[in-house]
């Protein structure tokens, strides 16, 4: 086994996990909302970017922002439709409603894009770098840097700006926030739009690694769930740490033991962490 290569693989894999999960971190942690259509939104964003490249003829660097914009707009629509259970902080209704959205998105996408695997290609995937025995692509570099930058920006906004304080106040007590002159419904829409746009960016950077299918999405939800819970619900730094930790674990476990059991082993780790630190790694 090439240990240095596995570490690079782990970092790249982990940055992808963290990037896909960043929206959920804010959604669940900062706004106490859930979205079980997260995986299908990831799939939809990948297909929108793919369709923009294949049907409209735009290049990858235009297609990904287009997918981010489209998912942001879809986020406004979805949030407007479920504002009532959101305002009532009814997590059960939100779970059911977002699961429903997920199935609708999956069915609609299958109808629109078909059931065959498609190649969503990034030119950066083909450009590779080699240092001694270690190999990686520019897509890996962009994913890693993009993830670090996005997490840093999110941490700064959440902890050092009035907007971050407003989001945290709505998360703690949306009713009380109204008495401070805060329109909680507007904050919920903003957070949901961020989640949708962030998962679209995640899809734009991570999905080109393998063929895309309209049936994909479930694995992404599970991974996101593990990262968010492992990191400590709502902890931006914790999610980043959990994403990298999980990526590293999967890369090393896959190389040393077997790739077939990585998901089961990752859940074992999750269980062990939750037994020792019930609020996750990043909880204070």
């Amino acid at each position, binding site marked *: 086994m090439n240990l240095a290569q596995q570490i690079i693989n782990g970092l790249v894999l982990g940055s992808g996990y963290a990037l896909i999960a960043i929206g959920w971190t804010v959604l669940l942690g900062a706004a106490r909302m859930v979205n079980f259509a997260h995986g299908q939104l990831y799939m939809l964003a990948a297909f929108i970017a793919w369709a923009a490249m294949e049907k409209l003829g735009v290049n990858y660097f235009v297609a990904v922002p287009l997918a981010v914009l489209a998912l942001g707009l879809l986020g406004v629509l979805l949030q407007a439709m479920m504002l009532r259970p959101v305002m009532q902080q009814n997590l059960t209704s939100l779970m059911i409603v977002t699961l429903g959205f997920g199935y609708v998105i999956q069915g609609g996408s299958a109808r629109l894009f078909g059931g065959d695997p498609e190649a969503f290609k990034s030119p950066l995937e083909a450009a590779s770098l080699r240092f001694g025995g270690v190999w990686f692509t520019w897509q890996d570099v962009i994913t890693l840097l993009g993830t670090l930058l996005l997490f840093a920006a999110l941490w700064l906004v959440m902890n050092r700006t009035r907007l971050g*304080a407003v989001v945290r*106040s709505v998360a703690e007590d949306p009713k009380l*926030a109204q*008495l*401070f*002159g805060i329109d909680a419904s507007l904050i919920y829409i903003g957070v949901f739009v961020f989640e949708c746009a962030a998962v679209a960016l995640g899809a734009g950077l991570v999905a080109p690694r393998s063929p895309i299918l309209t049936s994909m999405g479930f694995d992404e939800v599970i991974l996101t769930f593990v990262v968010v819970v492992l990191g400590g619900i709502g902890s931006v730094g914790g999610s980043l740490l959990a994403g990298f930790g999980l990526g590293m674990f999967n890369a090393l476990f896959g190389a040393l033991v077997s790739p077939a059991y990585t998901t089961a082993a990752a859940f074992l780790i999750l269980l062990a962490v939750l037994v020792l630190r019930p609020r996750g790694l990043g909880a204070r």
Partner: protein
Amino acid sequence: MTHALDATGISARYGGNVALDGVDVAVPVGRMVGIVGANGAGKSTLVNALAGWSRGRPIVRGTVRLDGEPLDGLSPHRRAKRGLVLVPEGKGIFSDLTVSENLALVRPPADIAGRHLFSMDEIFDLFPRLAERSDHKGRMLSGGERQMVAVSRALRAAPRVLLLDEPSAGLAPRLVYELLAKMRALVDRGLSLLLVEQNVRATLELVDDLYLLERGRLVASGTAAEMKDDPRILEAYLGALTT
């Protein structure tokens, strides 16, 4: 007398339970008005209804006017922006946010005509303790300090009318008198204030006018001087027996 706040026919019910039944209440400009009553009389329901706010989901009817402008149908955050600012009973601040963050949440209104915008210096003059605690999270504060933050954030919103719901709850008597005396000083500078209090004796010493609520109905009202001699107040709240 010009009314900063004028509410008529305020009714509220939770399911089949009537919590308020056609209550009229007014706060004249620059005066301090008290609402007293036993537990369950509907005092908190009344101020919450005025602010358009509630933890539950009551059905509220009636008309609320702020400086003559109707507020009916407006959400609590819009009422707060117009200048009708409520400090609710109990939890009035965010425990995960620092004192500074709690106070910075409030955006000063765009139109401050006829309203006094309290600067942070004024806030810290009023409550010097908060300057020392500005980096402390809400959950680290004592009950009295939390109440100071809750009142301060309300003042930062430049209220036309401040609704204060049981500020004395859980506070030591000395702190209650201190806090209420500070509120009285603000009223003397022009603030209009509606105070809900259990402590009738302290309320009577500070307010200009008083309303007495019983089982969701308004049963007496008048100036503080008049109400001091009202047999219902004397008997039920001041411990004197009428003969």
